[in-house]
Each structure stands twice: as C-alpha cells, then as structure tokens.
C-alpha cells in the first residue's frame, strides 16, 4: 500500500507542539503523529513509573442524540447499551453481518438520550459511513472528530497531575466513568479510561483549546516527571496488556469470539448486527484463538510472522515486540484452538528460522487501573 506523502497527512491540534519539542513524526493511518520523543523504551517505563501524556486527537468521535439513540446503538454495537448509565463508559464493537469486526470503540452515555462513540483514527470514515447507514428511528448523528482533541494522561501520578489542573475532584471518578469539568480552564470530558493498563484519564477537549491544556499538563507535571509519549510507546504499553489493536489483532476477518472479546458481546440483550454469526461461532467453538506468547529463543516476533509447530503453519503473529516492563520479547497471534492452552510450545518463524516460543497467560504485565 502506498503511503500518502507527508503533505497529505492530517494534523492534530498539537502538531506544532510536537515539532517544537523535537518529536520524531511519522505517518500513521493518514495522520502525521509523534512516534517518539526521548525514546520508546524510556517513555514506556516513565508511564509505568510516573506519568505520560499522549496526543490521541486523531481518534474519531461521533455523537448520537434523540429518543431512539440508545435503541439504535443497541442494534449497532455488541455490548449492552441498556446497561450503560449516564456518566459511564463501555468498551464495545461494531460488527459486520458475518461477525467480522468493523471497529472497536468506547461508548459514553452523556445524557439519557445522548451518547458519544470514540473510534480508531484510521477507521473514522469507514465507521461513520457504517453507523449512518444503519441508524434508524428518532436519532441524529454528528461526526465531531474534527472539532475534538483528545489527550491521554496515564500512569500512577496521573490522578495527581490531572487533579491539580481540574476544577472537579477527579479522585472520585471511577474506572470507566467520566465527568464534565475544566482542566487548565479548558472545558473537558474527563474519562477514567486508557490504553496502557495504568491508572489515568482521557481528556476530550475542544480542538481549539487542546494545545493550551497540553502545555499546562506538561508544565504542571514537570516536577512529577511527566513526559510526552508517542505512538511507539503507546503500542508497547497496550501490547503488554494484550489490548487489541484494530488492523493488527482484530479486523474485518476476525470475529469477537476468536479474538477473546466475547466479554463485550452480550447475546442476551437482543438483536444486533452480526449477532447470528457470532452466536454460531460461540456455540460451535472458534477454530482459532488469539493468544499471548513469549519467546523462549532470543528473537523479536512481529506482525505477519508465521507460527509453526513441527514445521507446519498453525497461525500467525498479529502483534509483537520487546516489552520494556516485562523485559521479554512478547507477542500475540492466532493459533488453532487446540494449541491455545497456556504452556503450549510453538515456533515463531523469524527470517526463515523457527524460534521457540510458549503460549502464556495474559496480560503480560499486571494492570494498575483504578478499582
């Protein structure tokens, strides 16, 4: 696939701030984003030991409003929207009729009849076309992506940092809950969610004010050791938690059951797009499963590498890297269900050579999210 040249890449409200800080910028899903500042390994470790700030403004936000908004979303997504309270967030999926995944997302209930859906940056256009084609009833949808900035603040010191700049008491915000308030004077939705496995927040801000909040966070956090963090460390952090990355671990060809996401599929809630196909897989049992593995031989597993057993192909790596907090080479990939048990020995084919690996329990690193 040909990458668009840099002139055609979209920019977040923080682009100039990243360049000012000397970030290494790369193209990602049609956006010019910082892959690293000080270095991926150092940024990763700082998030787990102190706090880091991530620009994730490239992600998409859709708002749904109307008396039938909840009903429409219930038919579109796999998780139970009826169970979502105002002020609560849920992780969920959009699926195709055949059970393949359109995208993974978080869904916010802003009011009785108002919701916000956060989607992956690379899928904004696809997801918008999908949801608007499938909405019915008294519901209006709005693509608010371009006017919304998003900063993730993650790490054990995140609560202290955001708390010092917020006009609300953030210590009382529970996991997967949110409040509206101001951070550094900027109107914000403060959500206790994240993609790192650490405690922290995601701050939804007006695009025009995002840079002000970013500079305030990095300035205020300086004595607490805050650092800006790029997409490189975002990827190693989520890999250690075995959080799915759309395009790597899940996509149109994968169903939620084999991907280990049955927990966000609530078959009992009623009908939704993909329900019949997903139920079939659940009843029959998936033919393959997404597992975590660690290398036994010294080698780096990477996306696309084959998984072998006794020389025969039994699956493929969907994500892999060095995990800076676990100090091991780790990966996730699909294997035939019979080989999915923890302890199973498999080989990762690296540059034509089988390198020993072993299926392990995940997450690779213990989560420290607020409980």
């Amino acid at each position: 696939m040909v990458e668009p040249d840099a002139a055609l890449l979209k920019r977040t409200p923080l682009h100039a701030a990243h360049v000012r800080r000397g970030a290494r910028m790369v193209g990602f899903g049609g956006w010019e984003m910082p892959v690293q500042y000080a270095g991926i390994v150092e940024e990763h470790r700082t998030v787990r030991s102190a706090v880091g700030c991530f620009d994730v403004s490239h992600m998409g936000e859709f708002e749904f409003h109307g008396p039938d908004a909840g009903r429409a979303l219930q038919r579109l997504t796999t998780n139970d929207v009826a169970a979502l309270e105002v002020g609560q967030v849920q992780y969920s999926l959009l699926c195709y009729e055949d059970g393949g995944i359109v995208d993974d997302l978080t869904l916010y209930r802003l009011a009785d009849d108002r919701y916000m859906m956060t989607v992956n940056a690379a899928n904004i256009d696809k997801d918008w076309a999908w949801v608007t084609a499938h909405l019915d009833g008294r519901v209006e949808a709005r693509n608010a992506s371009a006017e919304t900035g998003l900063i993730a603040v993650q790490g054990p010191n995140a609560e202290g940092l955001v708390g010092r700049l917020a006009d609300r008491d953030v210590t009382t915000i529970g996991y997967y809950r949110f409040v509206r308030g101001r951070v550094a004077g900027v109107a914000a939705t403060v959500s206790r969610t994240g993609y790192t496995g650490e405690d922290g927040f995601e701050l939804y801000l007006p695009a025009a004010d995002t840079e002000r909040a970013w500079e305030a966070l990095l300035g205020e956090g300086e004595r607490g050791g805050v650092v800006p963090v790029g997409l490189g460390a975002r990827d190693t952090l989520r890999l250690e938690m075995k959080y799915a990355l759309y395009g790597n671990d899940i996509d149109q060809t994968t169903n939620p059951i084999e991907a280990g996401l049955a927990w966000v599929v609530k078959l009992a809630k009623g009908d939704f797009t993909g329900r019949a196909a997903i139920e079939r897989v659940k009843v029959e049992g998936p033919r393959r499963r997404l597992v975590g593995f660690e290398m036994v031989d010294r080698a780096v597993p990477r996306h696309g590498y084959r998984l072998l057993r006794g020389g025969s192909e039994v699956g493929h790596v969907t994500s892999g890297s060095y995990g800076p907090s676990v100090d091991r080479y780790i990966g996730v990939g699909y294997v035939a269900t019979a080989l999915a048990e923890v302890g199973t020995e498999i080989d990762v084919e690296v540059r034509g050579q089988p390198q020993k690996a072993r299926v392990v329990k995940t997450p690779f690193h213990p989560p420290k999210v607020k409980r």
Partner: protein
Amino acid sequence: MATYPAELKYTREHEWARAEGKRARVGITDYAQDQLGDVVFVELPKVGTRVSQMQPFGVVESVKAVSDLYAPLSGEVVEVNESLAQRPEQVNQDPYGAGWMIVIALADEKELGGLMSAADYEAFIQTAGGH
C-alpha cells in the same frame, strides 16, 4: 549532538570500522542508532564466519524497525560482542565503544582505503544519507 570519531572509517550503510592491526572492529554509527531508535535485538554471526565487503552479516532491530548490517570489510569474524544479547541498548548508549558488534580479521587491508573518512561521512549524511 551526533559524533563521528576522526580515527574511524565509515560506510554508506552507516557502519564504522576501527583498524586494529590486521583486524578491524565494526559497529553502527551514532546517526544509525539515532535513526533506528531503541535497539532491542542484535543478530550477529558466529566466530569463524566469513564476511564480504558490503554483504549483510547480521541484523539490528529496534522497537519499530529491522535493519540489515553490512560488512564494511571482507575477512573472518574473530570476535563477537556477546554482551549485546543481554544489553542491546549499548548500541544506542555507546555506539563506538561498548556497542561494538564484531571484529574481522581482514582479508585485504587495502579495502580500508575505500571507506569514508569522518568528514566525508558527515557530509554524506547532511546530503544524501539523511533518510
């Protein structure tokens, strides 16, 4: 601030070579380690392997990238930096010192003359090499 020690020779593939009698110690330059990012794995040949000038002799991997290593000189590998297995980050921290990769017993010392000086390498990076 990137450094290019004057006593070393350099290649277009961003390797350096330090002449040590009839041998040469080899690694990758400060520019290369900076471009790669955090090195997490280095694959090196066994002692006794024959290498040929400009042919790949190993692989250096960062979090995001996999890169071939090209022999700046021909000969036989007589030493390998085994400490890079446990501590690959030495390539980033000290590319000309603790981050050395192999020592080659030279097949043809005249090949050294064909490599770039520090000044030439620095000029090369400013113009063509900056990718």
